[in-house]
């Protein structure tokens, strides 16, 4: 009986002790981020808003400031080889000042594709969401 009790105490402790430093690897994700270094953050914010306005992209502030914006919905062309007539993009853009000269833009998009039989279907594959998110950020990437 005693050896059984000892084993019951020792083994879980040994297993936990051996695994306590294990690092975790994250699975693939769909959100995309853009970091801009060495341009004043306040200027980046102004330029992004200006690009949204001049590109006639509908947006509303979610925080009363220009830090979190609801974007869209708006229509764009599909990325190759997606078999859709057009794409509807809608999402949330976060603009965060890491420091006065570093800005982070984070976009999470909800994407729908128009099929040949005129139906909107949601595109949920993380790699697709990433590709469209990347295109979105490239489009609105402010230049110095």
């Amino acid at each position, binding site marked *: 009986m005693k050896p059984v009790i*000892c084993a019951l*105490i*020792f083994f879980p*402790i*040994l297993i*936990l*002790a051996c695994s*306590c*430093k294990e*690092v*975790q*690897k*994250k*699975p*693939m*994700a*769909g*959100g*995309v*981020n*853009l*970091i*801009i*270094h*060495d*341009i004043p953050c306040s200027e980046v914010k102004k330029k992004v808003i200006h690009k949204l306005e001049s590109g006639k992209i509908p947006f509303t502030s979610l*925080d009363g400031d220009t*830090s*979190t914006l609801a974007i869209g919905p708006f229509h764009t062309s599909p990325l190759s080889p997606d078999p859709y007539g057009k794409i509807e993009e809608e999402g*949330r853009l*976060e603009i*965060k000042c*890491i*420091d*006065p*000269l*570093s800005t*982070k833009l*984070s976009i*999470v998009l*909800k994407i729908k594709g128009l099929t040949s039989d005129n139906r909107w279907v949601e595109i*949920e594959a*993380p790699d697709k*969401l*990433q590709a469209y*998110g*990347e295109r979105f*950020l*490239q489009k609105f*990437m402010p230049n*110095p």
Partner: protein
Amino acid sequence: MKTIVKIGWTLCLILGLCSCHLDSTDSAGDASREDYRFLYDYNAKELDGYTIRWESNTVKVYTGNISGAESFINRWQGPVNFQYVNYIPSDGVSFSYTPSMQYCGVTYYTYNNAGRMIQARVEISTNQFFCKGGLENTVTHEMGHALGFLGHTSDGSLMDPDGGNGNITTRLRNFMSLLYRMPYGTNIKPYLSFALHSPAERYQKDGQQIIERVIY
């Protein structure tokens, strides 16, 4: 007597287990808790404690024919290697000159929520006359950002906003060594000596979840 020995061994194991997060060095190497803290502050903080870096330790770079760029970039060599290419890589860093007089250099880069850097673009002003340390400091500073250094230091070294004295300090070298010793998206929170208070997780498994704004 046997019972006492067994109790002793059990206590030793329990103590070992409890202290496994309290040792000052990483069991896999020589990184200190301070090195992890620095890595957190200037990289992993932006992804809830998960690291952001290029997938490979060999990073593709297009120098845009900027004179001397390779030797300035090679100052970071060690934990990372550079493969110089003559095209703009879709999965690497590209440099180009800009006539803008407003800034010495600017770095843009994208990464996904798994911590993998996707693409970086660096623009270097053709006029470096008023830039501290000139072209060398500007190119090396921007490359530091393009490798994953987020934000700026205030210790007078290369990653200060103005490039400081141009030195890559031991702390900066340790930062790059540590970052490129682990795969992208490694959770370094278990190595930190302070409790993290994140009101909301920004990490998204599938990219569908809404990102909440977090003020540090």
